[in-house]
């Protein structure tokens, strides 16, 4: 086995092969189940495909439990994830085969739409987990987030000390940089990875104006302050980028899990209704 085997290629694409085979079998069963007009969710093949789809959905949901049991025996979590992704993806076609592509403005189609939403959010998750970790490492090579924060705190202390001997306008800018640099915050601001009202950016802007006006040795001190704040700005940007990446890795799951629950309930409602009104 390779040292690093991703969930894509786990066990030589075992789950990709199984999923494709399952989809092919379902398609064949559908196509061979009599004339097109008679195909429906309530034929023998329809029931079989529906049962398969419902069973798959329940099993896929079980992943939420399995991923928490760190001491579970059997296949590694990476294998489970591989199966989760491939089997989840084919559901998008298994269900239309179940219902013979009969869609409408009803709870049955709503259940399918919810399931598609779950799969789409899952696809986003797959995309994020494929692309983001590498970028996160690039963003803060070998450092922990706490180190970035401590560095910012140190710069804040240093700037405050430097500003004490400088004019009020300078001191005000430094205070803006210290007190109005917001890290994190609301969902949108974290996901955007920027802050249009960033205190450090504003402090840098006003300080560079001040520096242009100043003369003499003071100017040099302000220049040094500017340099330090530039370092802080890049640190702050990295913290925000980090927050954005973590947010994205988290956000899709915030849709995926509740949508999955809603979808399971909708499927249960679908099953109840089709047997209640037979």
């Amino acid at each position, binding site marked *: 086995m390779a040292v690093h085997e991703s969930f894509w290629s786990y066990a030589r694409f075992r789950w990709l092969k199984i999923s494709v085979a399952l989809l092919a079998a379902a398609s064949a069963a559908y196509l061979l189940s*009599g*004339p097109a*007009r*008679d195909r*429906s*969710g309530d034929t023998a093949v329809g029931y079989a495909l529906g049962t398969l789809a419902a069973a798959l959905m329940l099993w896929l949901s079980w992943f939420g439990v399995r991923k928490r049991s760190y001491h579970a025996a059997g296949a590694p979590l990476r294998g489970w994830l591989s199966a989760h992704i491939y089997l989840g993806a084919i559901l998008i076609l298994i269900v239309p085969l179940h219902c013979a592509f*009969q869609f*409408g*403005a*009803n*709870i*049955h189609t*709503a*259940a399918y739409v919810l399931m598609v939403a779950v799969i789409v959010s899952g696809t986003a998750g797959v995309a994020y987990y494929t692309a983001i970790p590498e970028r996160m490492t690039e963003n803060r090579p*070998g*450092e922990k*987030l706490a*180190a970035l*924060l*401590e*560095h*910012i*705190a*140190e*710069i*804040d*202390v*240093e700037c405050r000390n*430097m500003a004490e001997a400088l004019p009020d306008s300078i001191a005000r800018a430094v205070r803006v940089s210290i007190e109005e*640099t*917001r*890290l*994190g*915050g609301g969902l949108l601001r*974290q996901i955007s990875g920027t802050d249009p009202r960033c205190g450090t950016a504003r402090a840098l802007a006003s300080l560079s104006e001040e520096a242009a006006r100043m003369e003499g040795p003071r100017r040099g*001190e302000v220049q*040094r302050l500017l*340099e*330090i704040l530039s370092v802080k700005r890049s640190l702050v940007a990295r*913290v925000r980028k980090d*927050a954005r990446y*973590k*947010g994205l890795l*988290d*956000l899709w799951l*915030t849709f995926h*899990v*509740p*949508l*999955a*629950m*809603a979808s399971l*309930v*909708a499927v249960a*409602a*679908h099953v109840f209704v*089709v047997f*209640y*009104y*037979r």
Partner: protein
Amino acid sequence: MRARISYVTVKRSGTRAVRDVVLDVEVVRIGRGTDNEVQLAGLSVALEHAAIHLRQGRPWVETVRGDDLRVGGSVVSARALAPGDVLRIGAHELRVRRPAAGEDLALEVEQIESSQAASVELAERTRLGIHRGAITRRRLAWAAALASVALFLLLPWWSQRNAPSFDPRHPEHESSAGARVLASSWSSGPLSAAHAHFGDRCAACHTTGFEQVGDDACTACHSVGAHTGEPSHAGLRISRCADCHQEHRGGQMLAQFPDSTCSQCHGNLRASHPETQLLDASDFADAHAEFRPAILTEAGSTQQKRLSLEGSPREQSGLRFPHQKHLAGPLKSPRGEVTLHCGSCHRTDARGEIMQAIDFERDCRSCHLLSFDERAPDRHAVHGAPAALQDDLFEFYATRALRGEEMDESAPLAARRRPGRELSPQEKAGVIRWVGEKTARVQRLLLSEEGACATCHVLTRDETGVTVVPARLIPFSGSERWMGKAIFHHQSHAAVACESCHAARTSASATDVLLPGIARCRECHGGGTPRLGKLTSPCTSCHDFHRQRFGVMRAVDAAKAEAGS
């Protein structure tokens, strides 16, 4: 390079302590890691932050992995160092002193400030992570699940319960559009056009939960008679109307089925019913055998045999009838000259469907009077009942003879006497004997090869005498029609001349089966798939499934026909 590093610490009492370390190395590495020559605490110090080495005999600092190295307050990445320079890395100050003799570098290292308070403050202002407060993923999941229950189960159920009953006279009693959408959201698909008005009133048909819609729901509005249970299709396991007539599929009618419904069995019927006599058929245009009408193969018998038109079967109906002669032009008749056409004799049934049986009295007698006595041309023989004919003849001659009105010279004188004189019993007996002989003579004449009966009928002769083979003109009582498995609606083919299908004008014999072959039908009729220039003709165009005589369903039509007649 020989370097002296002096670590300065300030004790709580305020006294300064200095600990010197002298190094003899190529490079003085500075960083958080333990393998550095100068190890500095603090997360803002990189593991390998910077390094000092000699460059042209002078100390030279440059960053390694650290991104914030300041010398004299300015951020630098590399610089030469001179005594008096102050380096800043994290919370540490590294002061460059004048080195002692024999040494290249003297560095005083001191942690000058603590950023702990600032860190705490920053942490307080920092809110990272997207899950905080009341909105957790678990709660969202619960909310989504409960919303699903409400939206997909409770609200539709509630809307259905509150849907007003159907009353087209009071459309204002309709529920609101939103309520209708909710109530009908359980529907698995659109209703057929005829049932669309039920809308959200699911309970109109779905009377009991977890039970399939029963036939009661259909028969509440539709009178269907003996609709199901047709034995030849018992294998289909039809138990309910809805087994075939499936709702919630949209469309115009529930009674439209494509040929595939039939052909999935009839395309290869032997596979499921090895005992069948039926031939396979799946499409009229190209997968249907030549017609096999039920043919009378033996004169006098009512037994019919299905024979393919391919073998040009002959019908032994017991009739001698040349269509050719009757259609040839003006014919002499007791009424003068007549010109016959098909409709002179052939009439459809009340539905305009099949032809009624030929009736001698109605269709033949006006020309074929069956006169038997030239002295009484208005007296016609009884048709269709040999015993009645004999009685009728006897009665006719007896009446005439006993009245003394007989003109036949072979008759006894008493029969030819002048009226007004009573006959003696001996005379009467003689007259009756003669009447018997006369009746037998006339009957023999009628039954002779030149006689009236033989004009149209096949006669058989044996020791007991000559008999007329009764003509079986299909359909006669108890017979199958020629095309017993199909319907042919003559009236809907009225635009086509009879002779374009029935070659009657050239038929010299009644044994000709004047049915057109399937090729003739196919000139106009295609199969179930629409094709340019052909009438789309699915199986049910001719094989009406629910026809009570040969299918399940004709009860409905029969009821209509009765009501109409």
